[in-house]
Every structure is written in C-alpha cells, then in structure tokens.
C-alpha cells in the first residue's frame, strides 16, 4: 500500500472515509456530541464529489430523509448519539419494514436523557437491537479501533445493500474521538457491494417478491418502476394487506433475512482464546482494555483469552457457546449497568460462570479492573478447594472532574 495513504485520524473521520469508500452519496443529520464530526466532514466532503448533504430539523427528519434518498437510488447515511438515536427509532423500524438500505451511526454517550454528553458509554447495545417496536431484524457492528471503524463502515453499507435492511454502526465516544494511524485502501482493494436492481420489465416488478429468495431486487424511484412502499404490512407488490397469512409470512421473512445469514454476518476476533481458562467477552473500547489485561495476565501465568464481537447483532451465539464449553468463567466488561452480559449468559447456558464488570462514571473500564476481576475469579475457583481469601482490589481510581458541556 502506498505510503502517502497512511494517515493519522479520528474515529469519526475514519467513519466518513469508510462511507465515501463504500459509495455513500447522501448524508442527512442533526448535530449531536460526540458524533458531530461525522456530519461536519460529510458536509465538507460530499459536495466535492457531487453528493448530497443536508442538515435536517431533527433526527426524526434525518432518518426519514436518508430512507427517502435511498429509495431515490443513493447510498445514504446519518450519524447521531443517544438522544438522537432515541428519536430515530420509529424511522428505523420503517426502514426495516420497507427494506430500504441505509446506515445509521450511533456514537454512544452517557445516558439516559441528556446524561453526560461528552462522557463515553456503551449503554445503547440493547436499544440498537430492540429500540424500535415490533419484531424486526437488526444488524449492528461494533468496531474497536479507528482502522476498524473504516472497514466496518464499508461493511455496514455492504450488508445493508445485500440484505436490504438498515445497518447500525455502534461505537463509543472514545473510539469515535480517538486518533490512530490508518491506511485507507486503494479503490477496489476492499469489496464494495451495491443493491441488486430488478431486471424485469417495470410492469412485472414487485418490490417484495420473494419467489426467488428472501431478498428481492430494489428499484429506484424515477427509473420507470412505479412501485409502492408502505410501513403497513404489505404483499409482494408493496400494497397493504390484511391477509393474516401474508402478515405472518412477511414478519417471519424479515427476521429470516438476517437469521439465515448470520454466519455470513458474524465477525469476531479471538485473542489467546484457544487455551484460555478464563474468557472475556468485550466490545468497543472495553475490548481494548480487555486485550491489555489478557497480555498482563498471561505474563502472570493466568490463561485469559478474549472473544471480541465485531458484529454484535445478530448476537454471536455460536462463538459464545464454543467459548463457554472451554473456559471456567466468562467476564463481560461493559460501560453500562449490565446489558450484553445477559446475552452472554443466555448463550453460555450455564456451562460456565458469567460475571459482568460494569462502569457508568463515564470513565473507561481499566485493564486493572478486568485483571482484578479475573484474579478474583481464579482465586474463587481455587478457594473452593483451599479456602483462600477473596481478592483485595488493587484498583486505585481517581475521581475525574470534567466540565459539563451540554452537547
């Protein structure tokens, strides 16, 4: 790779690079910390490539606008954080129901409500899956480095185009604002996938025809295919139906699109997991601390290992199941008061202990916290035999005072 392409940049900037690489030509958004850089860069860069940028009146309008633009044939994206993500939920469901590809970036900040706007958090992982009403498919990607944000943004667009569904890119404020050196691949080096367009005559086109599979080709408005799109349950031709059989078929098909393809959508990193006795399940910034902890613990002779989901939804059941068969305990550090830990528990099915480390003071979970927890777990395991004392925490944390900015 050419040297001049190596650049030092922020996570949010890498997200825009990934979007442009994937062919994103439409951005609609509303400013909110800590995602605003994504919007600002799109506003500067998109006009240069003939793309469209618009600042909408709120986040509700933003998600609606990107769906409108996607139906007009452009790859479209919006970015937001906590409060804005909450506002987008109804529009997200509409995109799922109507099967319109689009990408929504949520740079997680502390909540609920306005919370601590500049404070990082990982407390939207459940909302990203369950935030909108009704059963619906969810593809949520959770990068943990600046370089990975680039690649996962490209993958988010690809997955949304393949499966005709909104894809959420979910990362925390730390990853979003952190700066790292990354190499932007040459055009063509990373695969970019575009939605399948219909090849039938317009009068035969049915936007939800599943005769050939669960995902029908998608035409663009204005290209001669005059089709109907509605958030009501609809038949293959897109028009509303109250046929109970069709409603059930459509509901099941929506979930099946992701469920049947989860092996293709799943993406995990395993770190010293092969011979691990204690497993860590961590995503985003917490996974960075976890990696550090694994290295330090290994130096001390404790066999720790990490499973890091890069696709967080659909949940990596198979990988957790596999890990739970081999380790004695799984530690789940997350910057919330317990969310994905329950999914880990569910997938581990009681085969091993599952213990969460939760932190919501808007400071990242430190490696030492994870290490303490693991040495504790190891001690607890041997304690059963020889009655050793519970571990004394070696963690010394400073209270950090920061200016409150009402981002």
């Amino acid at each position, binding site marked *: 790779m050419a040297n001049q392409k190596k650049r030092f940049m922020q996570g949010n900037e890498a997200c825009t690079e990934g979007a442009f690489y994937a062919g994103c030509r439409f951005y609609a958004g509303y400013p909110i910390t800590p995602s605003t850089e994504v919007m600002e860069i799109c506003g500067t860069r998109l006009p240069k490539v003939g793309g*469209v940028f618009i600042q909408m009146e709120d986040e509700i309008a933003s998600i609606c606008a990107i769906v409108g633009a996607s139906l007009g044939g452009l790859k479209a994206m919006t970015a937001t954080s906590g409060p804005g993500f909450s506002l987008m939920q109804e529009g997200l469901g509409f995109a799922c129901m109507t099967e319109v590809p689009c990408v929504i970036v949520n740079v997680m900040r502390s909540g609920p409500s306005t919370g601590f706007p500049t404070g990082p958090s990982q407390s939207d992982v459940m909302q990203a899956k369950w935030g909108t009403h009704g059963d619906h498919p969810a593809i949520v990607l959770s990068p943990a480095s600046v370089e990975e944000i680039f690649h996962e943004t490209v993958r988010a667009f690809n997955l949304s185009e393949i499966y005709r569904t909104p894809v959420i890119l979910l990362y925390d404020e730390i990853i979003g604002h952190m700066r790292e050196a990354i190499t932007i691949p040459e055009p063509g080096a990373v695969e970019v996938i575009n939605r399948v367009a219909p090849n039938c005559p317009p009068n035969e086109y049915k936007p939800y025809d599943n005769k050939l599979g669960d995902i029908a080709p998608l035409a663009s408005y204005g290209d001669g295919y005059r089709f109907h799109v509605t958030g009501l349950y609809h038949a293959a031709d897109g028009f509303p139906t109250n046929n109970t059989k069709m409603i059930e078929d459509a509901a099941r098909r929506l979930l099946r699109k992701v469920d049947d393809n989860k092996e293709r959508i799943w993406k995990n990193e395993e770190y010293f997991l092969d011979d691990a006795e204690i497993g860590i399940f961590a995503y985003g910034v917490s996974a960075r601390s976890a990696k550090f902890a694994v290295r330090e613990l290994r130096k001390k002779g404790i066999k720790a290992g990490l499973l890091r989901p890069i696709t967080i939804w659909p949940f990596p059941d198979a990988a957790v199941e596999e890990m739970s068969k081999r380790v004695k305990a799984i530690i789940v550090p997350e910057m919330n008061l317990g969310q994905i830990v329950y999914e880990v528990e569910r997938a581990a099915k009681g085969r091993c202990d599952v213990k969460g480390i939760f932190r919501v003071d808007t400071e990242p979970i430190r490696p030492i916290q994870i290490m303490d927890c693991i040495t504790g777990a190891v001690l607890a395991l041997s304690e059963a035999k020889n009655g050793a004392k519970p571990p004394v925490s070696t963690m010394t944390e400073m209270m950090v005072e920061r200016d409150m900015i009402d981002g």
Partner: protein
Amino acid sequence: MSTPTEELKPLAKKKKKVPFNYEPYIRGGKLPHIWCPGCGHGIVLKSLLRAIHTTGMSKDDIAMVSGIGCSSRTPGYVDFNTLHTLHGRALAYATGLKLAKPKLKIIVTTGDGDALAIGGNHFIHACRRNMDMTILVYNNAIYGMTSGQSSPTTPQGMISTTGRYGSIEPPFDTCQLAQAAGATFVARGTAYHFQELEKIIYEAILHKGTSVVDIIDACPTYYGRFNKYKTPSEMMEKIEKEGTVSVKQAEKLTPEELQGKFLRGIIHRSERPEYCEEYNKLVATVQAKK
C-alpha cells in the same frame, strides 16, 4: 370510487364531449378505497388527478409521498412512484427523495394532523427551504383515521372525541403558517369548489419552490356526526361553501363581513431561490475550487 358523485355532475355535464378518464392514473385492483361515503378526500383526488393530467407530466416523473391518516392513503391508489411513510414525516422522506432524484416532481398528500401537529416541525422547515414540492393539506379539521379527535385546525367550540365539551384551543391557519414559514406559493381550495381546486393544484404543481394548498374537505363520519351536520352535502355547503370567500370576493367585503371566513384561491405567490438549484450551485462552486 364512492365519492359523492352528485357534486361532480355539473362538471361532467359541462365537459360532456370528453369525459375525463381517470383509469390511467388509478392503480389496477387497488379499489375500493378505504374512504367513507361522503368523505371529501376522494373529491380532492379527482381534482388532483385532473390537474396532474393537464400538466402533461409523465407518471414516471411524479412521486407522491404521504404520512399516516385517511388522506395519506391517497398514494396507494394512484399509479406514480408512491411512498406511504410515518405519521407526520412525509415531508422529511420527500426532502431526501427530491435531493436524491431532483427530476421527480414531488406531491405530498397529508392531513391536518399529519402536517400541522406531529409533522408541524417538518412543515415549517419544508416551507423555509423552498424545495420544489407541492404539499396538499387535506384539512378536515379532525383526526379521521383514529376516529375523530381534535386536530390543530379544529375550530374553537367544535366537538371531537378528545374535545367532548368543545375545543378551547385556537386553531392554526394553514396558509398563514405556510406563508410565514416561507412557502412561495400558498393557496386554499375546498372539495366543494372542485373545479377551482383543480386549477389551484395545477398552478401549485407548476410553481417552482414549495407550494402549499390548504384543502378544506369534510369528514362526515366523525366531524360531521359529532357536530350535528345531517348529511355530507350539508357539511360541504355550510363549511366549504358558506365558510369561505374567494380572494376576489374578499376584496369587496368589509373586515366585519370577512370575520370567520377562510380565503379561497391563490393567497400568496413569490419568487425565491429553489433549494435543489441552490444546492447544485454550491456543488459547482465547490468543485470549481478543487
């Protein structure tokens, strides 16, 4: 369609020679529609289709976008690029679509609740941007779809299921709101004056920029029943005929005589840069600097 055809007869008589053929614009197999007998929405649709026909625009180049409500069901019956969205959000979807495909003529069919309550924010911002689109507010002063609750245009004192003792809220005037927010074409019509409405919609579609037409029509099923109008036609006469005066007539009337009457016709027309054109200029300038 089960719209009150008796009201349409005079027009059919006058234009005896060539009866208008709605068929090419109606989607095969999608009728009957959901509208109640006597509902004004069907009459509005007729005027709308005739107006579109007169413009000579290709069906491929028209996108009809709506929110949620009885009025918002319109796109499901017509053969254009059609998008039935979320309650209140039609204009936001329309904005994205227009920017992605500027050649599309966007027509938004929306209700008084859809446009002015839940969608009020999008409404004023759409007017402010002056993007080329036509917004038709089917204003029956009630939430029809959800069985007759008060809307932002329900006149004071009128009865609804959420205003059993008469509404105490002052209503919005759609046209004043649109004009104040920056719409460059603002008009009002009624289902009763369906021929005039056709002309107004025609002008609105041809206007470059955001055009808003407030269309007073009737929901006999709820508004009519609660407020003691005996028939849909009585409603139309009292509200749409007697309750409005044309802009021309109004010139001759005193402020006292105009009290409580809605103006009909083209109320405001002005020129302001259209959003998509401005955006294209911006792109050209930015690219020239590159």
